[in-house]
């Protein structure tokens, strides 16, 4: 059961990572002229606002999955990391849990900024909120996967 939940948690995290990365890239101010067909331009040429609700739902569901997995992590993985004296591994996970909590608190404002018509001077706030959320998702994704595979990564 716990393995199935871990796999579902990981798959949801992949979907969330893809969505937030598309959106975060799309709000980067453009420098060149429009109409470029580069991969980066195509990657960012998405309807950014269409991602907002999906990102909120994915973030909440993935966080709930993580919260359900947490007791097992606390008993098995964290204890093993302490036995191996991997303080930094425990540290990056601590940061992950704080970032996810702060991200949960950000979601209502993030959603509101994407779903209401903004004055031009407020688009910067929306951009930075999106980038902050993208940082949280990227950190959580990478830490989750590294810790999940840490025994295989160690020499």
């Amino acid at each position, binding site marked *: 059961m716990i393995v199935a939940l871990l796999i579902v948690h990981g798959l949801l995290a992949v979907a969330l990572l893809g969505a937030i990365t598309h959106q975060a890239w799309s709000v980067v101010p453009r420098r060149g002229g429009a109409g470029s067909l580069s991969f980066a331009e195509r990657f960012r040429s998405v309807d950014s606002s269409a991602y907002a609700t999906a990102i909120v739902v994915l973030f909440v569901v993935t966080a709930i999955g993580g919260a359900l997995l947490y007791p097992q992590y606390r*008993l098995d993985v964290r204890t093993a990391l302490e036995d191996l004296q991997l303080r930094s591994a*425990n540290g990056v996970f601590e*940061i992950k849990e704080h970032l996810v909590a*702060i991200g949960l*608190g*950000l*979601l209502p*404002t*993030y959603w509101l*900024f994407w779903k209401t018509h903004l004055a031009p001077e407020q688009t910067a706030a929306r951009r930075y909120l999106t980038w902050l959320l993208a940082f949280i998702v990227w950190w959580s994704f990478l830490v989750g996967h590294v810790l999940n595979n840490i025994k295989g990564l160690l020499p």
Partner: protein
Amino acid sequence: MNASQRRPSVEIFSMLFGIVYLTCFYMDWAPFRYYPDPRRFHINVTPQDGPAILWYGWVTAATAVSAVVALLVPRLLAERLRPGWAWIVPLIIVILMLIYERRWFV
């Protein structure tokens, strides 16, 4: 977002959430703890039950306190807040948290 569309109470919620969460974490206080070994929630500290998880309690406290305060702040007062604070305050919270958590890497 014009004045009628703006929901400053939502922005206050997001700003306060991180502050309350980080305060609870720093003070090592949670309204309840979960003990995964016996699979029990406790209001009191019960070391004999093994390691405790405080995260659920921190998130609950941050949600409840932020929601109550966000609802109580008068709209006129809330509307004085500049939208930029909605991302500046959480960013400061993240930076403070990262500074504090350096303890794991020294």
